[in-house]
């Protein structure tokens, strides 16, 4: 099992990126995969029954070493989807896992620091600041309902083979990584991740709003106020500034 090698390594760690995708054609997936290919060792993907050639796009990247395409969508049974992705990811015998959405980009500094973040034996997870870009890729949104960047989001975790991994069995809003990591020591970095999921024109935002309301009309899984704020005509936007030299663990 672990004979002769420490549980936590300070060098030679293997990093696997894991993501779930669905009908990503014409969005950011290709760019995300190009960027990931530059700093991870493997990419594993669960394709949630795409019908638009997403799987072919994934297969075109050499670092996509595992790809599972589901026959029917599990979007409404998110826990099962997360579990399938987790099992696929750990089957690559990774040392670290990076959970990425098909519209998330790690800033340059974060990509450069990635090896330093994982080649240490003090922390078992790393959390970044995620910024919701709005209406385009130059500004992020910051107001009462859109402020995820004021907190840290855990996306990079050490894989510990015998750890008890627990993910709540929910249909929606399932955490992207097992909750169990919360008990282990982690590093809160100031490195940033750009989330382009809302970097879309007003008509696309309206479609997203309609989809959310259809799926969750009573606000069972999320806040109705936040759903409504998707349609704000004048959201508070802040211009993104590139920066360097932050977020290194000691």
């Amino acid at each position, binding site marked *: 099992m672990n004979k002769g090698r420490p*549980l936590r390594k300070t060098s030679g760690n293997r990093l696997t990126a894991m993501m779930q995708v669905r009908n990503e054609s014409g969005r950011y997936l290709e760019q995300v995969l190009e960027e990931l290919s530059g700093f991870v060792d493997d990419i594993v993907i669960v394709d949630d029954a795409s019908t638009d050639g997403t799987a072919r796009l994934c297969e075109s990247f050499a670092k996509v070493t595992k790809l599972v395409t589901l026959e029917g969508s599990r979007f409404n049974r998110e826990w099962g989807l997360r579990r399938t992705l987790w099992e696929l990811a750990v089957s690559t015998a990774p040392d670290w896992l990076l959970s990425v959405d098909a519209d998330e980009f790690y800033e340059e500094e974060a990509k450069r620091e990635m090896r330093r973040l994982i080649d240490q034996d003090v922390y078992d997870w790393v959390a970044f600041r995620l910024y919701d870009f709005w209406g385009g890729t130059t500004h992020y949104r910051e107001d009462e309902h859109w402020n995820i960047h004021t907190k840290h989001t855990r996306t990079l975790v050490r894989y510990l*083979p*015998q*750890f*008890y991994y*627990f993910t709540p069995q929910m249909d929606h809003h399932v955490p992207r990584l097992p909750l169990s990591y*919360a*008990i282990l*020591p982690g590093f809160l970095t100031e490195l940033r991740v750009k989330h382009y999921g809302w970097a879309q024109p007003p008509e696309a935002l309206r479609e997203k709003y309609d989809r959310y309301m259809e799926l969750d009309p009573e606000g069972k899984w999320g806040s109705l106020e936040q759903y409504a704020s998707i349609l704000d005509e004048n959201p508070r936007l802040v211009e993104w500034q590139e920066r360097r030299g932050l977020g290194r663990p000691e």
Partner: protein
Amino acid sequence: MNYLILSHVPWEDYPYKRLLDLLPERAEVCFAGGMTSDQQAGSGVRPVSLAELKTLDGKGYTILVSSPYWLQDVLALKPGYIVALLEPCPEGEDNTMWDKYSALLAARADLVGTASERLYLEQNLYRPKVVYLGGDHPLSCGLIRRGDRLFFLTDYEAIWTRALTELWQPASPGAGGWLFTQHRLRADFYVSMCGKLPAQPTVHYLAATYLYLLGDEAAGRYLARSFELMLLHDYTDCLHSHYRFFSAIEAKKGNLELAVAQYEITAFTEEERKTAVRMRQWLDNGQFELLQAEIYRVNEDIAEAVRILEDLSCPEAQPLLLQNYITSFQWDKALQLLRESGPSGSEAGNIPLPDGAVLPISATPPASAVLLAGTEIPVYGGIQLPVIEGTLHLLHGRRHAAIRSFLRAAGAGGEARTLFAEMADLEEAVGRLKGEDR
């Protein structure tokens, strides 16, 4: 059997009066302190003064003691049996000192009883004979006739009488033990509570704990659910309290490789990592008993660790046993072990300590010489051996020897003022206890 009650409160406030009615083979029952004639007539208990206490032949008595500040008198009396009735620290008493001397009292006791479930569980991890003086079983579990009075026994009262009886009439090895019976009752209670409170992590944790004490494999399932509920409630400070417990459960099941892996996950400090490396070496070398004992120790299950180590003769077992004795306040046994570890028992007259230090041993070792011979004073978990020795001197009434030991600890960088302050505090607490109008 004669019984002597050394109480933490005057007779009118004594909380164990009904248990006195149930004492097995009850002959004379004495209470140290004052009682009115009505109280004597109603209870069949005879008061004894402090002066008379000193003249009692302790051998003929079982002492029921419920304040740790009676410990010096208990040791002086050399009773037939000591039963420690542990109480949470009362208001107005120094918590640290109460807990320390309660632990020392429990370590000297032949049987420990407590109505506090927290103390009960703590004591179960320290020693094998502990009775919980509380219970939730709704049915009567026995009947005792005392003259013309009939007592229907609760579950814990039945266990109390059985545990006392077995002090002088040990049960046959094949008989189901009272300890097991009580663990089973508590486990059943908490398992049923899990059904009623399915989102309560503490109830699941307690079910897991009792199932673990029983050696029941279901412990892992309940711990897992407790862990999940902790996470769902965002109680994330549970790496040691909850997660590490998986390693003890796996060790008890004999899954030592998995037990080590679970411990490694929780090992972050330098000391924990060294322990993890040592565990893996023992695993690779097939030294399974040592490994199992160490996993129990890091899970604070000292009772299980000691049970294994006392049967081991390999040199590595001795320092581990010493460490466990000290942690569980079995300090007499610790010093005894050091005395027995003369030059013949260890290389070059040294005892290797688990943290890599070495304890030098005198060639002709009376108890104190063992400790005084070295130039360095070993420390276990913040406790210096001269402090242990001094404390025992104090408890046995050897005040000057205690002072010499404390001075020695102080000379080695310890805080003499702290030690003497504790000595004065203890004397004051003892004086307060005995000065109460009983």
